[in-house]
Structure formats: structure tokens, C-alpha cells
């Protein structure tokens, strides 16, 4: 029972973690909570569904690659249209946050308009295959999700530590102005960070719908809020915090729904969030910031 809960929690936590990295990455650079991330989660799932059923002739790999490219482009365009004009004027982040909420509304409404509000069947990998993992009944897609997430996390850690672009993003999170003076292409790099965040949201969006084997218009807001809670729990702006927060939240939810009740599991994530905010607002890994006069 406990092992089963842990496996479920790990696969669900992977989905939270991937979306949470998107929030955290952009926050670490711009100190901006990018609300459009949850909408990109939904949009990419809808794009995957639309491509799979119409264009790509039922090839999951091809559809997935096209969806990733589309999500990356959406992220870059969001930055150009909604964030860059406000950023360049040097305005408060609250305005950029409100603008990103506008983008979220636009994306969600476009999805709702084109997709409709009914639940549809979503293509999945290795349907009906189960593996007995020390007594825990694990579906193949759960293992695929966990492994994919581990690969992506490894890639992200290589990307931020050893890759030129990734190191640029870390430099940006320390001091944008200095980067600008050193001749770095700041605007392009920030655009890339949005694209990377969106692609991670796309991976988790598609993975989540494959896990559920269905897609409806409400998946975005449900997971978006949880992922956001995970980001805050781990310490917003810290990539490892987002991952740890995502797994803690998902395992806690599965423990509560396994041993107590389903409806209580929804409370637990926000209960944990409120507790963290009251006890240690910076989250598990967050650094304390100093007030400047």
C-alpha cells in the first residue's frame, strides 16, 4: 500500500516538478510570477491532441516533437508581446504579472473556443501494460513519466551548469544590468528562458493527459495551481526547490488520499502552502532577501 502510494506520488510529483521549474526559472531571472505557465500547460496538451487527431497520422513521437516546438515558440512570443514592453520601460513586476494573467486568459479562452468543454480521449503510450514493482501495480506510462522527468532534470542541471546559454541564464538571475553591460544578448536570453519554461510545461501537460488518458479544458488550472504551490513550498526562484516541492506535495497528497479521503487531499496542498507561508515564507531552499531603503 505504502509503496503503491509512493509510486503514484512520484509520477504525479514529476508532473508538478516540471511545471514548477517553469515558474521558478522565470522567477529567478525576472522576479516575476509567470501566471501564463499554467495556460501553456493546457495549450500544449490541446495542440498535441489536435495534431495527433488531424495532421501527423497518429505518430506520438512526431506529434510530441512538434508540440514541444510549438510550446517553445508560444513561450518566446509571450515574452515578446506581454512581458518585454513592460520590462523595458522599467516598470514594477506587478504590472508584468497582471499582463501575464491577461495572456493566461487569452490562451485559455482560445483553447476553450477551439476545443470545446467536453472531455475527450487522449492517446497514450503502452496502454494497459502494468508492471508489478514489489507489489505496487505500476502502469507503464507512470514509469515512462518518472524516467523522462529524471532525464529532463539531469539535462537541466547540465544545461544550467555547463552550457553557454544556461550559464548565461544563471548570470541573468544574479544581475541583469551587469549582463547587459558585458554585451550579453539579454532580451534573447530572457526569451529563451520563457521558451524553456514553456517546453517543460508542455512535457508535463502532455504527460499528465497521457496518464489520465483523457483531456478536458480544466486540466490547466488544476495542475497549474498545484505546481505553483510546489514552487512556493520549495522556495520560489530555486530550481531544486521546485523539484523537491513538487515531489513533497504529490507524495503528501497521495498519502492523504490513500489513508484518509480524496477530498482532503486537495486541502492538504494548500494547507501545507499556508503553513509554509506563515512559518518560513521563503520556502525550503529560499534565501532571505534584505529590504533595501
Amino acid at each position, binding site marked *: 500500500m505504502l509503496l503503491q502510494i509512493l509510486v503514484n506520488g512520484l509520477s504525479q510529483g514529476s508532473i508538478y516538478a516540471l511545471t514548477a521549474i517553469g515558474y521558478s526559472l522565470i522567477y529567478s531571472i525576472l522576479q516575476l510570477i509567470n501566471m501564463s505557465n499554467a495556460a501553456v500547460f493546457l495549450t500544449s496538451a490541446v495542440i498535441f491532441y489536435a495534431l495527433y487527431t488531424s495532421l501527423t497520422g497518429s505518430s506520438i513521437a512526431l506529434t510530441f516533437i512538434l508540440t514541444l516546438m510549438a510550446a517553445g515558440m508560444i513561450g518566446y512570443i509571450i515574452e515578446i508581446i506581454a512581458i518585454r514592453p*513592460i520590462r523595458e520601460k522599467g*516598470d514594477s513586476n506587478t504590472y508584468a504579472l497582471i499582463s501575464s*494573467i491577461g495572456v493566461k486568459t487569452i490562451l485559455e479562452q482560445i483553447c476553450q473556443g477551439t476545443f470545446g468543454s467536453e472531455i475527450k480521449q487522449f492517446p497514450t503510450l503502452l496502454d494497459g501494460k502494468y508492471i508489478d514493482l514489489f507489489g505496487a501495480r505500476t502502469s507503464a506510462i507512470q514509469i515512462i513519466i518518472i524516467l523522462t522527468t529524471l532525464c529532463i532534470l539531469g539535462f537541466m542541471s547540465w544545461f544550467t551548469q555547463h552550457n553557454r546559454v544556461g550559464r548565461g541564464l544563471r548570470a541573468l538571475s544574479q544581475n541583469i544590468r551587469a549582463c547587459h553591460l558585458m554585451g550579453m544578448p539579454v532580451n534573447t536570453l530572457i526569451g529563451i528562458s520563457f521558451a524553456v519554461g514553456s517546453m517543460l510545461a508542455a512535457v508535463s501537460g502532455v504527460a499528465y493527459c497521457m496518464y489520465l488518458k483523457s483531456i478536458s479544458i480544466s486540466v490547466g488550472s488544476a495542475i497549474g*495551481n498545484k505546481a505553483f504551490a510546489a514552487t512556493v513550498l520549495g522556495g520560489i526562484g530555486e530550481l531544486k526547490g521546485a523539484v523537491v516541492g513538487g515531489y513533497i506535495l504529490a507524495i503528501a497528497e497521495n498519502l492523504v488520499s490513500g489513508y484518509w479521503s480524496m477530498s482532503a487531499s486537495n486541502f492538504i496542498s494548500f494547507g501545507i502552502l499556508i503553513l509554509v507561508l506563515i512559518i518560513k515564507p521563503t520556502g525550503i531552499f529560499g534565501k532571505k532577501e534584505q529590504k533595501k*531603503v
Partner: protein
Amino acid sequence: MKKYLDTRTIIFIVIMAGMAVAPFVTDPYQLRVLISCELNMIFAMSLNLLMGIGGTVSFGHAAFYSIGAYTTACLWYHFGWDYSTNFIFVILITGLAGLLLALPMSRITGRYVTIITLSFAEIVNLIIRNWDPVTLGQMGIVGIPNITLFGFRFKTKIQFFYFTLIFVILTYIFLKWLVESKLGRNLQAMRDDSIAAEAMGIKLFPNKVIVFTISAIIAGIAGSLYAHLMTYVEPATFNANLSFNCISIVVVGGLGNFTGTLIGALFLTILPEYLRRFEFLFKYRMIAYGMVLVIVMWLNHSIPGLKLKQSVRNFFARLLHKKTADQEV
């Protein structure tokens, strides 16, 4: 007397006069849209008090709206009380909720306010969804009657319209007075520079608690009227989008500008209803709320009356790559 008749007040009087004669020329459907406008006006004005004057953006203001709506709906459903009694409980309970949300504010500043307001709204929505014995859960409460005051039942929507209009006017006058009062001035000082305000001897915490409570109460009143207008309440209505739409209205009207909020509410409530007529736009009509947010943030954060001309000029100047008035200074 001259002091009170500035441009904003005159526009307010014109709008209210227009609203007052509107029921004579509208059909029932248009009247319903106008009542929604009034509710959005009250709701958005309460948020504008928090955003424009208090400098705290609440991303979960729908929580208070839903608490107000559910308070009056539950009291009617379980006890059969009329609105005059429920109204007192709406004020008490939403005020208490506002107080509860304001308490963590002593420790939390800046971006964590965003986070905690969002999660507060989510928790309120979860409670409404799952507290079956009281709120009837997902089913919602149906068949809520029109407002009854001390045994007198409103028969038509026109009476409801004027009753709500009185609330709009009272809220507006109250908020205008509040902004000019000591509390309002304290809040504006805190908004502009909280450290300097604290150094001048303004206690941040009590002021924040009071403004949250007042804002919550006003939003709760709007919600309670909503329950009687729609005759049913269900949890799905009070999601995060309701809060975000309210932010759109406030942002369009301009932060701290209550007359602008009234215009914003009229604009953003009527526009989606108008777009219903066009078949190809029908599904996408709510995009207007999102578009408005992005465009206004582009232009100049807000369009407060007189700044409109400036921001439009800046916008075209930017298109033509000319230097704007701002940049020259």
C-alpha cells in the same frame, strides 16, 4: 461646494443619471446585463480600494464574493431568513474572512501577498465544494428568491436594479470619503513607501487589516446581491477567473480611480455580451478581458481619465519611433 465637483465626480453623476433612466428604455435581457454591471462595479470598487489605495494586489478577491453569495444563500436555504437579516451576517462573515486573510500580512510582504491571496481563494473554493451539509457541494443551492426586505418582497428586476444602484452610489461615496480620511491618507503613504510611512509613525499592520476587512465586506455585499440575482449559486462560478476579470476591470479604469472603475465595469461587462451577437466571436468573447489587460499594461498601466490622451500619444509616438514627452524630460 466647488471642491467636490471635479471632473470625476461629474462623470460619476452622469453615469448614475444614465443608469437611473436606463430601465425605461431597456428590455429584460439588457436590464439583466445592467444589473451585472452594477454588481461588477461594487465588486471592482472594493478591489480598487485594495489595489489602488492600499497598494496590495489581491489575486483572490473572488473568495470574498463567493463567501458573500454563499452566506446569504445558505441562510435562506437552512433558515428561510430574508435579506435584511442575511445582510448583517454577510457583513460579519465576510469581514471576518477579510480579517483572517489580513492576519498573515504582518509577516508577509511583496510577492508573498500574491501567493497567499491566490491560495486563500483556492481554499475557500475547496471548502465550498466539499462542505456538503452546509453548501450542498457541487450541486449548488438553487431557487434563491428575489430580495425580501422586512417582509416586503421585490417583485420585478427593476426594483432589484434600483436597490443595487443605491448600493453602487453608497459604496462610491463611502470610498471617496475613505480615501480623504486619515485611514486613506495613511494607506496612500504606505503604498508609496512603506518604510518611510513606518518611520513617520504610521502603524502598517492595523491599517492593512482595516483596509482588507472593508474591502472584503464590500465584495461580500456584491456577492450576496449576485446570489439573489442569479437565483442559484454553484462553486464553479467562483473560480480564479472571476478574480482575474475583476483585476481587468480595475486596471482598465485606473488604479485608485473609482469613477474609472465604474466605466471599466460598464465596458467589460457589456462588451462580451455585445460580442455574443457575432457567431464567429461567440466562443471567444471572454478573450476581451485578457486582451484588455495586456493592451492597457502596454499603454501605460492604466487609463485614468486625463492620462488617456498622453498614453495614446506615447503609443503612436512609439510606433513612429519618435521621442515621447516622457523621455524628453
